[in-house]
């Protein structure tokens, strides 16, 4: 691939476009308006069994507007940047707002709250596109090759891949706010398949992701780790139904953190749809649990200078020593609950803003994962969850799982086709160990955790 990226769609000045859309919405009779404009480029390639399987490359852009007539709101979006396309988008937003309800809590944030974090947040590196096409393909090829070369039992592959993307986002509103930021992203991954003598196959994967190519793990390291994770699944058996301690590796422990996130999400809190609603100030987890959301960490995957409504991002302690300290809120849910927004508004192109994480994590503990495993005589180490059996209203939890059975402090043999069940309210109180291995591979991160008191369903 030799085409130039990052230049095809830059012709439009997104800032002028967004401010113009807001101005015209106000001229059209809106009492407030907000516009998001985005553009981005992406490149991805998959190399399978050494051969390029797919190459994909494109740029795209889109614009969305939210208008208010007093307390009525509506939104529209378009990928058509022509004057006629923009005009049609505005017209239908102004029309649509007539059918929505007067909601006393709706509106854009107060002018005084708007703003953008100062300084360079280290979110954008042009180097994600610095490689020539052939070298990008080579990144993917090397990751896969390292996996395939690791062991003769690795006989097949879903490929190695390399992805790069950049995006620019502009937000403007009728209080005069105009903010803009750019982010870059690149990743390399491998998905090997191992086969045992009986012909049974297992697959696993590994990846590295960074905002800069310079910070990406070497492709070989990614491939080897993918192979290690795949090989250890060979020969998996079912387990006996049991009540044993369960360890979650960091990849699956993040899902527990996500359940807390959904539980403290202001949207589910005000509707009473969360098992954590009404629990501010209460002990909802063990004293060892501290959960933070921080949208300001320099270079973070969940970092941005302002949230989806134009409020500077911040650091929020969600749970401190087991006590629920804060929900995560946007302007609407904060007003509903009589609280202040935590700058977690997450704005897509259309619809009302939702709530999304900044860099959201469980504070690390002291023990290494090996020590935590070493403490267990008989238990389960989970490396994968399957399915979505989580009821956030009641906290009931039941998911498919696979991993390793622990015998006398060692990973003894792989297990699969089992379930793990409990209730989130108990689970957070029963996290008896937290590992020292906190590492961000996305905006949500957790170290290894040990949970006591879960039911493992098997034979």
């Amino acid at each position, binding site marked *: 691939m030799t*085409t130039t990226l990052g230049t095809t769609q830059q012709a439009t000045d997104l800032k002028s476009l967004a401010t113009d859309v807001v101005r015209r919405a106000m001229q059209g009779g809106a009492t407030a308006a907000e516009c998001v404009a985005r553009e981005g480029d992406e490149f991805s390639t998959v190399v*399978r069994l050494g051969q390029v399987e*797919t*190459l*994909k*490359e*494109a740029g*795209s852009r*889109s614009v*969305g507007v939210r208008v208010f007539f007093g307390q009525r*709101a509506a*939104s*529209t*979006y*378009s*990928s*058509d940047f022509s004057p006629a*396309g923009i005009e049609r*988008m505005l017209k239908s937003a102004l029309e*649509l707002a007539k*059918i*929505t*309800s007067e*909601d006393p809590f*709706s509106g854009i944030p107060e002018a005084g709250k708007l703003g953008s974090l100062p300084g360079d947040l280290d979110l954008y590196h042009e180097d994600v596109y610095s490689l020539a096409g052939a070298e990008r393909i080579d990144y993917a090829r090397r990751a896969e090759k390292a996996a395939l070369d690791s062991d003769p039992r690795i006989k*097949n592959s879903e490929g190695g891949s390399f992805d790069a993307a950049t995006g620019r986002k502009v937000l403007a509103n009728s209080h005069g706010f105009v903010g803009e930021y750019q982010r870059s992203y690149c990743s390399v991954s491998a998905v090997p*398949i191992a086969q045992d003598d009986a012909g049974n*196959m297992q*697959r696993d994967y590994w990846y590295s992701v960074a905002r800069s190519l310079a910070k990406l793990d070497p492709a070989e390291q990614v491939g080897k780790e993918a192979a290690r994770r795949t090989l250890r*699944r060979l020969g*998996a058996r079912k387990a*006996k*139904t*049991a009540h*044993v301690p369960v360890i979650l590796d960091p990849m699956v422990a993040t899902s527990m953190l996500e359940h807390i996130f959904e539980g403290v999400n202001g949207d589910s809190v005000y*509707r*009473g*749809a969360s098992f954590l609603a009404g629990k501010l100030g209460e002990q909802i987890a063990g004293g060892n649990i501290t959960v933070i959301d921080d949208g300001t960490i320099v270079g973070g995957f969940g970092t941005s200078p302002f949230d989806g409504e134009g409020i500077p991002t911040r650091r929020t302690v969600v749970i401190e020593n087991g006590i629920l300290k804060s929900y995560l809120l946007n302007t609407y849910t904060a007003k509903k609950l009589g609280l202040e927004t935590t700058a977690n508004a997450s704005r897509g192109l259309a619809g*009302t803003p939702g709530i999304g994480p900044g860099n959201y994590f469980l504070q690390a503990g002291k023990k290494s994962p090996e020590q935590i495993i070493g403490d267990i005589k008989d238990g389960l180490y989970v490396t994968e969850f*399957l*399915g*979505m*059996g989580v*009821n956030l*209203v*009641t906290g*009931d939890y*039941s998911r*498919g799982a*696979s991993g390793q059975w622990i015998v006398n402090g060692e990973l003894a043999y792989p297990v*699969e*086709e*089992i*379930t*793990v*069940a409990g209730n989130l309210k108990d689970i957070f109180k029963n996290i008896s160990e937290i590992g020292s291995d906190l590492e961000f591979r996305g905006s949500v991160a957790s170290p290894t955790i040990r949970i006591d008191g879960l*039911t493992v*369903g*098997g*034979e």
Partner: protein
Amino acid sequence: MTENKKHFFFEHYGLSNQDLEKYLAAALSAGGDYADIYFEYLSSTSLSVDESMVKSASQGISAGCGVRVVSGERTGYAYTDDLTPARILHAARTAALIASAPAKTTVTGFQQKPARSLYPVTLPSVDAEITAKVELLMRADRTARAFDSRIKEVRASYADELRTILIVGSDGTFAEDSQPLARMNVSCIAKTETVSGRGTSGGGGRIALDFFMGEKNPEHFAKEASRQAILQLDAREAPAGDMEVVLGPGWPGVLLHEAVGHGLEADFNRKKTSAFAGLIGKRVASEKCTVVDNGTMPWRRGSLNVDDEGQPTQETVLIENGILKGYLSDKLSSKLMGLADTGNGRRESYAHIPMPRMTNTYMLAGQDNPEDIIRSVKNGIYAVNFGGGQVDITNGKFVFSASEAYLIENGQVTAPIKGATLIGNGPDVLTRVSMVGNDLKLDEGVGTCGKDGQAVPVGVGIPTLKVDRLTVGGTARRETGGYMQ
């Protein structure tokens, strides 16, 4: 193809046959075996009523085209959301870079397939009066709130779209379609001082708005969601371990989708990454099981006149009386594997590469009376509603989560149980199907399937089924089984 007929993209974007030939020629300028262009114009609406207020209303339009060049097993793909000649040409030349050979002879002339009409709406729901859509949601809200005083929260949502597509290929493919899709959904939370429960129900299809004025009206969905939420208030903890499982008819067909459907998509079998690879002609299910994928059912959510490669959809027998018969294929897999193209090439949008996907996947009805099936179970569970499922196609392990299930004790359906997860092994589970009901039902039209990050609408269905052994993941200590530590 007749030039005098109005084609949407010709009319709105000034395209002509000559332009399309030129773009395809650019796509094949570096060689390549095949090229196609997928044009898409998508118009959509989404509404929600929450706290009895219309809180959210949005509409949008997205348009673009994706150019694909296939060279052997390699695919080059580029897309643009700017449908100007320069941008389309740029995308074509970018996708072309996957190949490295002399230019192919270019395509001249297209053959338009005979038109089908599985969803002939005169007024697509996306163009219907927005106030009529709002009224549907308000009716759902009122019905749910009136159902029981313990219903405390109601959220009703509605979404529709009209997707207009044109697919042209270097093999002469010229296919147009206009695909309506609408869906409404009601979700409720029931509460007492000590317990809470939730319920959801919804439906739709490639239908016009009047669909919701008939039997599947807002009241139907609201009552069903409310009933489920209230039922949860009395639910007990689910048992854990292996046991007999009876699946109710309809949406529990998500079992088939996860347990066998994905594993029979041709791409996984071509690459031998599926647990079903190499099993054609082999027994993979009890002889009572016949499973089909059928994209030709009128009005259904998973149906299509043509797939996203321009190939007419069809009914494909996957498993016949327990024997594995075939795979679901797209153009690439059928060519590389020497199979027929079953019209299962689908994609989420112009920004995505097509791949083999299911349409409506279901099991044909059997002979057994559903009551007899329940009566035959001494100790097990009866699962009638599910949230969703997931499968690892490499080892065939799948799970799905029951949102409404009951204990079966001595042939009688007894207490409701809280969300149990069912887990099994794809190549194995249908061999354990010992009874198949005479009551085949399809789901109400809410399914969305994810694969490789691409979401597409699908349908599922089964008659009442008895599976002799499946692992249930719950928390209750089971006195009779004695396998709790």
